[in-house]
């Protein structure tokens, strides 16, 4: 069966400096289970954990956004970040994965200023 699957690629830092531990990941887009706001200037993506086979907690990717404006501007920025990730989750690139966010390549859609990846352990 041919898979119509999309993979979302993330990295949050220079691999030479970081050794890649927790700093980069790729997920099937259909493992994106939910997103929600988690703080001023932060929304979190929840993916099915990929490393340990557990089913008790997700891998988290926190999307950092600009919170320097008023509360409603902060809300709008968080929504824009989540909008951008939905677009990436629904993008097909049959020649390779879809870069959802890359610090290395300075590819930062939706006004996302940075990400923090936390793997379930």
């Amino acid at each position, binding site marked *: 069966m041919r898979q119509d*699957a999309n993979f979302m690629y993330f990295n949050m830092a220079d691999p030479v400096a970081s050794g890649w531990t927790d700093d980069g990941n790729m997920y099937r887009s259909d493992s994106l289970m*939910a997103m*929600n706001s988690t703080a001023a200037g932060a929304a979190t993506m*929840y993916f*099915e954990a990929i490393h340990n086979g557990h089913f008790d907690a*997700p891998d988290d990717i926190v999307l950092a956004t600009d919170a320097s404006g008023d509360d409603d501007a902060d809300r709008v920025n*968080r929504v824009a970040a989540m*909008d951008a990730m939905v677009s990436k*989750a*629904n993008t097909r690139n049959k020649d390779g994965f879809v870069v959802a966010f890359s610090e290395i390549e300075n590819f930062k859609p939706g006004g996302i200023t940075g990400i923090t990846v936390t793997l379930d352990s």
Partner: protein
Amino acid sequence: MKTPYLYFGRKGYYAQAGVAPTSNVAALTAITNANGGMLPIVKANSVDPLTLGYRVVHRAVDAVDDKRGTDYTHDWVTGVAFSAGTAGGWDANKNQDDIQANQVTNLTGVSAFIVGSGDQVVTIGDNVAAGTAGTVATGITMTANDEVWVEEFQFNAAVLPIATIGADTCFPATSLIGIEPLAYSAGNGLHYDNTALDKTRLIFKSGDADRTVDTVDIVHTGAKFKEMCEAMEDLCNSNVYDEMTKVHYLHKHGQFVHNAISGRGINIYGVTITLQNRA
């Protein structure tokens, strides 16, 4: 597989019938995310209610004389003057400060109510010059049968959460497991304009990965469960893939409701988001 993603923002809505005054004030039950979908922050006597993004509304069941503050002159729903008497449709010819059954008062006086620090208890003052809230002008003296609503209507930091867990959520449409009707009896199951209300629960596979569920509870126009299901079916089968489909949220100017819902004659009064085990 492409899928739409559904976005929901919270809207606080709390109703309580039967609040008896003691010591010149009437304290509502503490509002929580569970019973009202919001956490109003502390409000002092000096804070203008018009700056808060929510309103506290009183609806009279009993007729009592001299119990309404002089600030309030017109019915909040109909706009009819309280002093209009039988010509305005009221039961009797009474003064403005005399309360008659079914009169609705939006408590906008600066000292009309206070909210405790960290306890989310809304305390409404009597129309007397004593007690911790309310004055002859701003207070209202309730009977145990009267009803009170606390209704959020704008995105405002006076009501939490605005940016933390429970403020909003987004799920892939493929995670919608089912929809169930729930009983809604707060405030006798009525909005302050006498509209009958019902509640519907949307059940999603949880974002927590723990084989549990997250829920979005929606208080809406009564007898519209079937229409809510139709709206969700429409949204789940839409072709919107490049951004979230915004189903409901509050912004600084008011409320957004997707036209798949509003177009079916459904008003949304409250949205409570319950997410399992989020950190």
